[in-house]
């Protein structure tokens, strides 16, 4: 041990090290940095258990599911004795699937269009506020909805947006009382989409702005001072300093969002949908839940097939977006 230390101290350690064999170099390297790897171990174990190990079960998509057997012992999917690995993909990809796919992409694109810029704009505005206390207050209030579960949010949405009449929504009751027509916020497919997207923006813009505020805080204040000296106003500073300063953060988050364009969380859509708007509100995640878990005839193979499809398409979107961003001179996600 002492020998190694002394070697490292003596003059040019680099050349000394390079003379050693690979194994020895590895040992020295590990001796120095093993704590870092030990720290890395925990998240790695997490990934292995919860992300890599479950990948075994992807094979369910190609098998005939049996309750009483481990996955690797289930028989391959077959039709009348002949193995047909794509059986469950064919069975799942019926009109319902395509309408769910279309709805997923539509809702996610709308979310991206309205939901993605909202936290950026909010962060920019917040950054310009001069009163610290007021700023903190606004920030906290805006975070709040993020901590509510979607079921509770839906409860609030119902109270506000339900049709008029018994146990009716506040807004429609007021409208009708004042002689105006009720608005079918939750009953009409196109209105429902609007409600869905806006409630989503309301729930997440505050929380989403945190990362941008952090990025803004990292911008060198001297840049602003220099710009002021050059006579730049607020808007100019925003446009020429703040936005370019957080551009790479924006790009990374945009890539991640595009990767999730065929994905999407389950709880939000499930809490907010109702039978009347199912034609626009059934997304892949609720489709999977309905045919897989809550169905009288669970079809685990088909839901796995749909899940696999989502992951593969998501991966292509992610890689594509990453490639484009690198072509445009941005950093990308790696």
């Amino acid at each position, binding site marked *: 041990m002492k020998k190694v230390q002394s070697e490292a101290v003596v003059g040019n350690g680099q050349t000394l090290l390079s003379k050693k064999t690979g194994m020895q170099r590895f040992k020295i390297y590990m001796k120095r940095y*093993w704590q870092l790897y*030990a720290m890395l*171990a925990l998240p790695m*174990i997490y990934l292995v*258990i919860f992300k890599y*190990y479950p990948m075994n079960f992807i094979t369910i998509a190609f098998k*005939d*599911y*049996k*309750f*009483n*057997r*481990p996955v690797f*012992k289930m028989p391959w999917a077959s039709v009348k004795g002949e193995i047909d690995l794509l059986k469950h993909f064919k*069975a799942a990809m*019926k*009109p*319902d699937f395509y309408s769910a796919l279309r709805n997923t992409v539509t809702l996610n694109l709308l979310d991206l269009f309205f939901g993605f810029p909202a936290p950026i704009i909010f962060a920019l505005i917040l950054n310009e506020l001069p009163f610290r206390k007021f700023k903190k207050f606004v920030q906290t209030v805006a975070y709040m909805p993020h901590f509510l579960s979607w079921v509770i949010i839906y409860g609030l949405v*119902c109270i506000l947006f*339900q*049709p*008029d*009449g*018994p*146990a*009716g*929504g506040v807004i429609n*009751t007021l409208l009708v009382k004042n002689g105006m027509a009720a608005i079918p916020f*939750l*009953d009409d497919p196109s209105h429902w989409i609007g409600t869905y997207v806006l409630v989503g923006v309301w729930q997440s813009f505050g929380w989403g702005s945190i990362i941008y505020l952090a990025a803004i805080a990292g911008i060198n204040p001297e840049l602003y001072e220099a710009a002021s000296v050059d006579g730049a106003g607020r808007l100019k500073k925003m446009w020429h300093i703040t936005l370019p300063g957080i551009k790479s953060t924006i790009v990374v988050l945009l890539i991640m969002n595009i990767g999730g364009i065929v994905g999407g969380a389950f709880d939000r859509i499930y809490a907010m949908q*109702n*039978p*009347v708007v*199912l*034609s626009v509100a059934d997304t892949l995640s609720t489709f999977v839940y*309905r*045919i*897989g*878990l*809550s*169905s*009288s*005839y*669970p*079809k*685990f193979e088909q839901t796995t097939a749909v899940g696999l499809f989502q992951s593969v398409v998501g991966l292509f979107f992610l890689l594509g977006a990453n490639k484009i961003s690198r072509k445009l001179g941005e950093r990308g996600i790696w």
Partner: protein
Amino acid sequence: MKRKLVALLLAATMVISLAACGDKKTGDSSSQQSSGSSSSSSSSSSSSSSSSSSSAQTEVKNDPSNGELVNGKFVKTRKITVEVYDRSGKVAADDNAWTDWIKKQMLDRYNVEVSFKTVPRWTEKDAINTLLASGDAPDICYTYEYPTIQSYANMDGIIDLNPLLEQYKSLLPNLWAWLGDENIYYDQDPKTGTVWAIEGRRNNTYRINTFIRQDWLDKLNLKTPTTMAEFETAIKAFRDNASKLLGKDAGQMVPFLLTSDVGWTAAPIIESFIDPNITDKELYVTGFDDRKYTVAGTKEAVKVLNKWYNDNLLWKSFHLHQDGDSAGDDLCKAGYVGAFIQNYDYPYRNNEDSINALLAKNVDPNAKFVAINCFQDKNGKYTHYSYSAAGDRKTFFPATNKEPLASLLYVEFISSPEVIQYLQIGEEGINHKVHDNGAIEIIPVDDAHVRYNQLGGNNIDLTITCNGLRLSTPELTHLSMALSYAGSDPQDVANAMAVAEKDAVAPIHVNVGEITAESEGSDLTGKRNAGFTQSVICPTSDFDKTWDDAMKAYMQSGGKAIQDEREAAWKENFGNKTNLN
């Protein structure tokens, strides 16, 4: 060095626990086949050690349990788990006076240790699907829908009960006495002979009723409706006199409460539009859905609902509240609802928390719902479907069940007349009192005996093979039925039973084996509910288009396939006959 060791150890534990997870599943799979043989070998060794006389050996030979049972008790304590619905009642469904009693009885009688596993009532399918997939399902499960069980069977998820029933029949006298061959073999596959589930039995077949606020009718000088036209007049009168009936709450008025389960909360209306002379064949082919979605006539019934919706006679937000949501009940309890359709005893259920008891307590001592018959078919009769006595909850054993005999003995136990009676009426003085004529009246449970609150009316969630009050004699049962709802007027209950019985038609039972299309259609129930609700709330001018479009989508997603397969199966089994009898 120490830290390294700890890290290594941690890593090792992770790897081992992962491996253990995998092992558990393999263990489960092989256990099912081997369980019978392994348990019998262990027991035979114990019996041979006790005595080797020839008489004892012949006894063992005649004993269907292969000596596992001595004097009807297991030599070694067995452990089983039993599903119980959780309806978020006053006591924990798996920890109360009744479960304690059952545990003790099972231990005393059979040396079987019972534990209960709760499954939420309104999301039971999600729960059981998940439990089966993870290998954690209770040893004894039950559900109401047979095709679900068939699909579990197709995935090797459950045990065929046929050989077990044959082997152990002599040990199950009460089960046979109560259910009989009819219920036990109700779902036996005519081709393969498999029995995936045992059907429970209904001791009464009352199904559904229409209820109306008697005090509102009185206030408005209306007579009790006996036709649909009169019913419509009544609910319109409720709507138009909202301020008289509800005062400042006039805006809350719901003349007729429809819920998101349209096919259920409008069933008598729908059934009155179905041709009363419909053939068994047509009913079998088109009536596969228990809400009669595809039966001819249903469309006309929903058209009426659509008219009512657009006439402000229904609750406008009904479709936003799904199964298990209490919002509709709350409106009834708050006194805002004029009429509704539900289970035949719905306003009387839950004793002092029942709709009628709360109405009388919070709204007006005279306020109450009474059952009426007013939806006539084209012949002027109040045709509506009842339940069939055979066929209720279906009890099945998952493939992970390692104690099929102990589980069967539990079903035997829970089908014993004295057990059913005790669970249904509870303890004298706490749950019931006995009238001079022997009739048993259910009384509210006081706060000191909270653990004695029943799980559903008459502990229905525990008496898994019996639905409906069943006392020692049919006469006593009849005397006590109307008294079995604490907090409600027995006369109202008796009336509800009479109304439910009038012109009721028993459903037909057709068993032609598996209809494979039934488990292949994707989420037909969801499509059906969507079709119903959309057609109710659309503008009247769009009704035909909305209904037809939804029906087309439903038929394309599997409805047509089921009808075709049923039609073919009918032909194969019954030829050109259109009626069974």
